């Protein structure tokens, strides 16, 4: 019995001592380009560290963290209590949440769409199916075609909870596998509307959004997101199982440094400070 315990302890300790500096990052599709840029630059400066980045969605990343198959999970929404509970059961840890950047959720329409602005309430009514024609919000007389993300997306969850007040999406929503696919669909659909990270808003038009009827409308640019005037903003998170140490701590510290935050701006998101 003693031998058995000794072998187990030796095996466990040796695997810890000889662990390589390989950091795996998985999760949010919204953050995948940002995470890749961070990793590329950091590896260039620190060749002894290998960082592997993959997407899949916030939900997928959180599952990977719970299963121990990723070191860092990128998430564009906070972890749910049920997910924290699973992490607790597997690792006896609550996980550590790190805010890495800010993002404004842009409302996209086709460049051909003449709509000038929308209130948050109108966006909610459009996505819950209460408003179905563009003329109801000052546009042309044409049916609104809804594009959304799939339910494993952190953006989907954030939008549902914070814009739709947790009401259900209209059944007519077409769910797209990623923001790039959503943007592509809207660029071809003059009656389409979609949402996603500001960094993705290429080839289509972002609609200025008002908090309510009495407010001014703002675009999701750096100034408006940082000041909080743009009404649909969120944090982009990293989650790790335990308080980061060693190579992972150095990497996360670098992400939060001035240099790491400058990448945030280059990719199209907004720095924390």
């Amino acid at each position: 019995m003693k031998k058995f315990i000794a072998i187990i302890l030796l095996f466990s300790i040796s695997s810890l001592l000889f662990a390589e500096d390989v950091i795996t990052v998985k999760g949010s599709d919204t953050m995948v380009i940002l995470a890749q840029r961070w990793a590329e630059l950091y590896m260039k400066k620190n060749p002894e560290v290998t960082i592997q980045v993959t997407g899949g969605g916030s939900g997928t990343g959180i599952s990977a963290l719970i299963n121990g198959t990723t070191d860092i999970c990128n998430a564009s929404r906070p972890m749910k209590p049920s997910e924290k509970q699973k992490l607790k059961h597997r690792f006896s840890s609550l996980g550590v949440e790190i805010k890495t950047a800010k993002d404004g959720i842009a409302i996209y329409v086709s460049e051909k769409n003449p709509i000038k602005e929308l209130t948050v309430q109108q966006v909610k009514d459009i996505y819950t199916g209460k408003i179905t024609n563009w003329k109801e919000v000052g546009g042309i007389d044409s049916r609104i075609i809804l594009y959304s993300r799939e339910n494993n997306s952190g953006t989907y969850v954030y939008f549902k909870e914070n814009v739709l007040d947790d009401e259900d999406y209209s059944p007519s929503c077409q769910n797209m596998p990623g923001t790039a696919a959503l943007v592509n669909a809207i660029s071809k659909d003059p009656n389409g509307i979609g949402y996603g990270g500001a960094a993705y808003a290429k080839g289509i038009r972002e609609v200025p959004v008002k908090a309510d009827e009495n407010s001014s409308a703002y675009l999701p640019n750096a100034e408006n997101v940082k000041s909080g005037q743009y009404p649909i903003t969120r944090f982009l998170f990293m989650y790790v199982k335990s308080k980061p140490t060693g190579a992972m701590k150095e990497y996360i510290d670098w992400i939060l440094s001035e240099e790491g935050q400058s990448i945030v701006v280059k990719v199209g998101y907004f720095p924390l400070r």
Partner: protein
Amino acid sequence: MYFWQFLDVIYTIQSVILKENIVKSFFSLLIAVFFFHLTIFAQEENPDSVVVSTKELQEQIEQLKLHNESVNEILLDMKSYLDIARKLKFTGYMQTQYQGSNGIGSAQYPIGNFAGGTFPTNVGSRFQVRRGRLKVQFENDLTFSQYVLQFDVTQNGLGIKDAYINIKDPWVKSWNMRMGVFDRPFGFEVAYSSNFRETPERSRMSQTLFPGERELGAMIEFAPEIGDWTNYNLKLGVFNGVLPTANENDNSKDIIGRAGFIIPFDEINFAFDGGVSVYQGSVRSNSKFIYTFNESQKLFLVDSTTANAGKNYERQYFGVDGQMIYDIPLLGGISIRGEYDFGSQPGTDGSNVFYNSTAPLYQRKFYGYYVSLLQNIGTKHQLLLRYDVLDPNSELEGSDIGAPGKNGKIGDLKYSTIGLGYLFHLDDNVKFTFYYEMVKNETVNSGVAASSTLAPYKTDVNDNVFTFRIQYRFPF
């Protein structure tokens, strides 16, 4: 000529490989246009061929556009099926194991009955498929309804584990209503999935009070995901009160409930969860012989009134449970879990599993508990220690069992078990478990006759069990 061959290749690639992606189709188109320009540049010396090529190219582009349209139509059709497929989830896990005991299976006393099933007579080691689960779930996220069916396939055959319908309230989305066969909402361990549980089996207490864990009934659950109440949960259900998938045998229903809380300290990665549970039910006696224990006399007294058969007798449990976690920097998370249950249980002379028999009914007061300590080492290794106790008759000492003038039974024996384990998570699918449990029974009065069924319990029976288990789960 080469250009058209190349275009054909692009077209073929697009048709065969890139069918699913419109963006990629357009990318192919762009490549085609790029090569078209190259061709024009290369053929400047022959303007006639340029005119012909342009025409043909335009036709090809039109064809490509048409092709894209048709791909779009196919995709839309496929999407409707894909949407259904996304709602359908298949998950499962299999646990295969080798077990060895320091004793040999005997007709006189059981070995391994709380470690995966009693060893057959004269058998001291065995291979088993302990669990072979396949779970099918269909979730409609618009109506918040869920269908769940879980099978268990082992060397003993096929069984149903879960079969229920769950409906979430569409307004605040914090309430669930569930009906069918599912885990009884009592304590922590009963509802803690075998897929995730670190010990091979639940404690003797949980297995005795809730054999099979599940039960036929209906339950409401309050478990908010957002808002101020996320750290509280409540489950309250009404159940048949018989074995998991057995038919109801009386008109009374059992009520089971648990109120739980979570106290997280995110800054220091510490949390304490806990809950209190209640089971209020009864069983119907099929015998007129009802034995109740008289504590002062240390005797079971029998009531044999004919009308006793068909009467209901109290089955009542109370429980408290707590789970503490703390993430130790550089080492890994530590978890300490405990549960203490007590109450009254109708059983038989040889067993304190709840009464569901034609034998005389024995009413006993019991208590039981377990404490477990789990230490993570990194992300792949876990060390485990568990101590569990079940005293089925808390009013009777072992030395009184078999004593002259007393009538204590095998079903009154107290057991304590120490379990030591190591778990290795190879990847997100495979887990290895090494677990050794040392089972200690209460010893009976030394004066017990050799011919008595109590005789083997004059000393601690050799019934320790070592388990080596491999678990494979999917998807992950």
